[in-house]
């Protein structure tokens, strides 16, 4: 039997839905004045009835065009936002309860939401995260050494973060996220804006982390190369709905390219 099938389920969602309420503002000065007296709101269903399961140790890709609902799904899985309806369980927790025990076991890297202190060095941020996650000194030194070697960034640890390149900064974000050896790592567009070499490096490191540390990784990306290289399984989301959930190779064999995945998988679903 396949190892992944034997592993326990670490993420489970059933009929998960998120509806945003947003203010509809009419254009022009008249519209703005009208808005003062009469507000109109519309409902936007960002995620619609998604069933989504991940087994421990899996490396799963989450793809879809802009506005498909990928990031909203990640935000619900990490507890940042509450679902409107449906069931959700991550490592046995209801994420939006934001329990300490839950937060201690996962990490999330979101492109624009840096955990690094721009004015300080990476070592300063790591020292802070050592205390936040209550990592024993020996384990901290061992883990830091493992990742600085793996990412080949030893000479950058004492440099002010704001002087690092985008690729270097993303490596550091991933090191900070992995310092406490999380069971689940959520990555939202980790290679966005990176050149081919830096993106390749990040992919190589993530693969190694998944294999060596057995970290479950949920990755969203617009780059098919990320998905093809890293993810054994891919979930495709469009208009808030799951339109494909299966093997990555099988998906590419069936639909060939990203445009066809989004169009044809939706028709097939």
């Amino acid at each position, binding site marked *: 039997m396949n190892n992944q099938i034997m592993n326990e389920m670490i993420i489970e969602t059933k009929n998960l839905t998120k509806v945003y309420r947003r203010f509809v503002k009419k254009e022009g000065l008249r519209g703005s004045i009208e808005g003062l007296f009469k507000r109109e709101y519309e409902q936007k269903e960002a995620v619609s009835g998604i069933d989504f399961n991940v087994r421990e140790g899996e490396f799963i890709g989450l793809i879809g065009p802009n506005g498909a609902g990928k990031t909203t799904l990640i*935000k619900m899985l*990490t507890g940042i936002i509450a679902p409107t309806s449906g069931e959700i369980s991550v490592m046995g927790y209801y994420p939006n309860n934001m329990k300490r025990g839950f937060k201690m076991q996962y990490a999330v890297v979101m492109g624009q939401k840096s955990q690094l202190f721009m004015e*300080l060095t990476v070592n300063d941020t790591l020292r802070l995260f050592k205390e936040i996650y209550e990592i024993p000194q020996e384990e901290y030194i061992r883990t830091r050494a493992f990742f600085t070697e793996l990412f080949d960034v030893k000479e950058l640890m004492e440099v002010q973060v704001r002087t690092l390149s985008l690729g270097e900064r993303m490596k550091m974000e991933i090191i900070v996220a992995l310092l406490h050896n999380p069971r689940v790592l959520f990555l939202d567009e980790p290679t966005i804006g990176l050149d081919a070499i830096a993106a390749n490096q990040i992919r190589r490191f993530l693969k190694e982390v998944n294999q060596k540390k057995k970290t479950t990784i949920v990755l969203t990306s617009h780059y098919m190369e990320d998905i093809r290289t890293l993810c054994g399984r891919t979930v495709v989301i469009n208009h808030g709905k799951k339109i494909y959930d299966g093997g990555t190779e099988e998906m590419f064999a069936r639909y060939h390219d990203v445009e066809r995945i989004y169009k044809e998988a939706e028709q097939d679903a």
Partner: protein
Amino acid sequence: MRKYAEIAKAYLKTQLVWRADIIFNMIFTVGRILFAYLLWGTIFEGREQVAGFTFHGMLSYYIINSFLTQLEMSSGISGELSARIRNGTFSKYLVIPVNVEGYFTAMEVGTVVFYLFFDFLAAVVWIFLFGIEFVFVKTFSIILCAGIMILLGLFFMVQLNFFLGILTFQYEEISTFLMIKDNLLALVTGSIIPLTLLPERVVELMRLLPFYYVTYLPSMLLTGNNRQEAVPGIVIMAVWCIVMQLVIHFYWNKYIRKYDGVGI
């Protein structure tokens, strides 16, 4: 507790990066003392006392009060919270195992410790340069009471600004709230004029509010005035801190469900 000490340390280190900021802050402290010297020098011309203060007593009050006012930098908290909630980057505090209010309090401690040192240095230098006969209370119990009151006052201001910041979850735009708070504070903390210059009824009313105890009463206590208010002041301030904490707890739990993390 160690995690919050490390957060404070990180923000202290962040402050130390900017050398020009340190210099300009010291110049600003000096500027305030110089302004007070000229202003009160004119007011005291030909007079021994104004509202029970001698010239040097008034300057001492002003130096202590402006020192405490400069330490009170918690308005950055409401600004930071509001901006992050609006642009979606507030999520970074939600995904780590810390109490968000504790994080912001530690951040404030790191900032205050930095200014405590440099503003104190600037004030001492200028007391000597102007030859001010500095009036400072010598009773240990009063100094202790003033110290406790200062800590409670600074903590209350952190709580107030945290509360105003989380109103962004509900109202999205809180600049009017902040403007009202800033204007109110300028008057009721006695940072413009000592409150003894105001009508007694107004002062009576202010004694019920927390702002009276943030900088005004500690400054008065440290210059040897209002001793009888020391202990009641601590009790009132402690009650305000507890009330504010209950308010934050209630609204945090209510509003956090509204957060949609929309932004960049």
